[in-house]
């Protein structure tokens, strides 16, 4: 009945796992005197293979494997490709910025790759228990990575805070899954989607939905579940922040899409107003708090909360429109956010001697390359046309308007105006002449970082100037998500991302 071997359905995950294991083993077996940097290249190559394998999965007929627990479809391929690209960019970024004498570099690279396994699996899982396990895999990797700078005063604090709050949130998710299981007797997503409308106890199901939403909204750091974000971002190494502000969020949004549109399509009347409120709260809280920040990483942390809000606005869209808009936004957001954190890593330094907005003063004069790239990403975050950030917001708010949530779009656009103020503060500092009384060190831009930056710039530009292909991909993805029974609609996927 299913001619595709099951292993093909999880090929990228398998490749990533093997890469991670290889890196771990090499770390343990290589003589201690040898440099550990090549392990990063091993991880990067493994991720590249996983990226290619994800694209290759498009040639498979859509369907499920391993007893209906994972599927491959345009939707999963889109997110796999996105996550692999983000992981690749952050590996490249780490390669050049991680101090050469730092401990356990092999573990660092392996953890990034293992985290990617969890994230990829999360987007492909159609069984809530597997999704939970995948979420834990990715979370545990990021908990450890967040505390990687053990010497820094804020490193361990960040890790513990993230770990405690994160465990608490996943408990909510698990509780929600248990309730859904109690109501229907299954945890398979398509089965749930079929059985939940017929469930006897309505309150039971609504509680399950609410619990799951809490668990996931924590992961995407939407207000009011955002309190961990600024502290963790400040304490974690910046290359890790580039990763964890984008890839796990993309994966969590994929799960959120599945839960809202596949598990609980019958409860739209409940979930839509909830998400509406969370979106408005996230945008407003994120932007207002970001206005007051002096530390660039904290400012970007609040900005990421606001962006989660813009993205959630897409959930007000009807059916495929909302899904496509949300998926597009994750890609646009990932491209510009990885890019800007790459610049911040280089300018602030790995140990973050220069974390403040004032420390960015004159960047455009000191290092024209970094300065112009920084301003470019800020422009995209503001949402100026011809960048990915513009089309992301455009589709998201269009979806909201299409779904009848005009006020959500208006609030979102007002918020974009507020947000421009703090992005511009950073941009203006960078464009200003340097302080003549201060001496600045010019950051070095290595080959690997250059590649990561170019990847991010190219992605942001493509999403802003020629979004057609990506739009096609997210739309095909949205369509596969809308079919509750995968056997009934084994449509060939039409376009590649």
């Amino acid at each position, binding site marked *: 009945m299913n001619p595709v071997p099951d292993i093909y359905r999880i090929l990228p995950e398998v490749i990533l796992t093997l890469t991670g294991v290889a890196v771990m083993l090499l770390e343990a077996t290589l003589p201690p005197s040898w440099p550990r940097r090549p392990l990063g290249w091993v991880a990067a190559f493994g991720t590249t293979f996983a990226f290619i394998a994800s694209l290759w999965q498009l040639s498979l007929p859509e369907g499920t494997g391993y007893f209906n627990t994972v599927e491959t479809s345009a939707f999963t391929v889109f997110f796999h490709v996105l996550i692999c690209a983000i992981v690749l960019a952050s590996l490249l970024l780490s390669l050049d910025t991680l101090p050469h004498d730092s401990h356990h570099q092999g573990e660092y690279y392996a953890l990034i790759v293992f985290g990617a396994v969890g994230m990829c699996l999360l987007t492909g899982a159609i069984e809530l228990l597997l999704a939970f396990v995948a979420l834990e895999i990715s979370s545990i990797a990021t908990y450890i990575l967040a505390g990687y700078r053990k010497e820094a005063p804020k490193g361990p604090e960040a890790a513990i805070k993230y770990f405690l709050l994160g465990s608490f949130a996943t408990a909510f998710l698990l509780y929600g899954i248990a309730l859904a299981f109690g109501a229907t007797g299954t945890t398979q997503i398509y089965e749930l989607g079929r059985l939940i409308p017929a469930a006897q106890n309505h309150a039971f199901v609504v509680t399950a939905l609410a619990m799951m939403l809490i668990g996931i909204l924590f992961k995407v750091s939407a207000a009011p579940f955002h309190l961990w974000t600024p502290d963790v971002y400040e304490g974690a190494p910046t290359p890790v922040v580039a990763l964890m502000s984008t890839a796990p969020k993309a994966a969590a949004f994929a799960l959120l899409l599945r839960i809202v549109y596949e598990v609980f399509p019958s409860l739209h009347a409940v979930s839509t107003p909830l998400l509406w409120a969370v979106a408005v709260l996230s945008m407003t809280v994120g932007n207002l708090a970001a206005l007051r920040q002096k530390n660039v990483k904290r400012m970007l942390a609040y900005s990421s909360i606001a962006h989660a809000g813009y993205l959630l606005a897409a959930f007000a869209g009807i059916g495929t429109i909302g899904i496509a808009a949300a998926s597009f936004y994750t890609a646009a957001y990932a491209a510009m956010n990885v890019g800007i954190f790459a610049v911040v890593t280089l300018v602030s330094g790995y140990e973050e001697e220069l974390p403040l907005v004032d420390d960015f003063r004159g960047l455009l004069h000191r290092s024209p390359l970094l300065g112009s790239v920084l301003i470019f990403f800020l422009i995209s975050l503001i949402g100026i046309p011809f960048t990915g950030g513009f089309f992301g917001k455009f589709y998201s708010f269009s979806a909201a308007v299409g779904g009848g949530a005009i006020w959500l779009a208006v609030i979102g656009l007002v918020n974009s105006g507020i947000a*421009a103020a703090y992005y511009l503060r950073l941009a203006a500092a960078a464009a200003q002449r340097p302080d003549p009384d201060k001496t600045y060190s010019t950051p070095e831009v290595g080959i690997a970082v250059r590649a990561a930056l170019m990847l991010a710039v190219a992605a942001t530009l493509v999403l802003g100037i020629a979004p*057609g292909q990506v739009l096609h991909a997210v*739309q095909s993805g949205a369509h596969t998500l809308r079919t509750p029974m995968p056997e009934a609609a084994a449509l060939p996927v039409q376009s590649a991302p």
Partner: protein
Amino acid sequence: MMKAFDPIILNLILLAPLAGALLVALLPNRGKLPNWIALLTTLFTFLCTLHLPAHFNLAQHGFQYEINIPWIENPAISYHVGVDGLSLWLIVLAGLLAPVGVIASWNAITERPKIFYSLFLVQQTAMFGVFVSLDLMLYYGFWELSLVPMAILIAMYGRKSGPAAALKFFLYTFIPSAPLLVAILWLYARTGTFDFVTLQVLLTHGNFPAAAMCWVALAFLFAFAVKVPVFPLHGWLADTFCEAPVALAMIVAGKLGLYSMLRFHVGLFPAQARAAAPWLIALAVIGILYGACMALVQRDFWRLIAFAAVSHLSLIVLAIYGLTFSGWTGAVYQILSHGVVDAALFLLLGLIYDRYATSEIAAFGGLAANLPRLATFFVIATLAMIGLPLLSGFVGEFIILSSTFSSVSRGWAVAAAVGIILGAAYMLSLVQRLFYGPQSSMVSAKPSTDLRFMQIAVLAPLAILIFALGAAPSIWLNAIQTGIHPPPLTSVQSLYAPATSENSFPTPISLEVQR
């Protein structure tokens, strides 16, 4: 043979500066290489813009040199560009001012020339884009894009407090553009198109909820009024003029906002524009008088020019919202004239600022003895600005005032004329205080050289243009008039005719794939 370029000329005009910007950014910063690339690019672009009037068909109404290529399938955004009488000379003017700006920055911009010239060229593309776009989303894209290089350059090269001025400039224009975007999206949701020409027809004959249309038109108007700027929204202008590099200050004021008003506010929403007209006429006259009075008391010549600009731009707003054929012609003509005269004044003041590093008027006096050629050019520009017959300012002001007097309101026309008289007062007193009278201690302490060949080479074309605009207005007016069709009053009247079709716009906005 040159006709062969007609179908691609607008692509050339849009892409050449962009290509130049890339070239400047990629090639090394050796000697004056960035300057030369920028100069050659802008000269080439200027030549391309000259192609437009050379092959412009005066007998044909509507858009020429049109290019219409679908760009994004869903939502249906297309790369639709074209030129008509309204935009024709504005494009040529923008093309002319670009090389002038490059030469003006030749020695003034020494730090980071690569960034300066590449952003300057991107700014050119954005400006041309605004003038030629016939797709609302494309237009919006260029409109927003035009903010970015300007803001960065003001922050980078500001004289005293660049970043603050840049922030003010950016936010003043960016925040009103949010409602503009919502309005454009609303139009798309109702009509299923962003195309200007289609929308113009649909909006004239369609049946739309009046209240919503009122808000949509207001959103358009608000965004443009800030950019012009119209009276209470002018807060950004003085700071921008004080801080912006000369080459950018020349191109920032007026043109984009006024053109957008004509094309996209009055052009798309004639009925709403007519409803708003009394308010705008009142604000325009207040702006004329307020700007003139403020200019009279300024101590800093950049601020004086800024308020003079508020006054003169308000006069054009008055002409636009008089909604008469001759008023519109005068308005476009006056945008041109003001563009040239303002550019000349900025160049000259920039040269003075370069020599003495102060913009405080009181510190000057008796400059004419040291700088006779500069003084000559300054007087020519000043006389053009205050509307001396045979110079460019006269024609526009005369057309505007006479049309206001005869077909709008005598009272407002008289009030506006008072503003113009005040204009003569502050401009002549500026000339007097800067160039004549006893030499101030600063001027006598710093003897400086007069204009050099390069500088004359830049100023001479502007001076010639000032005479040409004033002495032979019909050359310019003929082309402008083809763009004003149908005359505004008749198109407004046609709105009162019963709607021909109802509910003919079923396509809502959607991201669906067409399988």
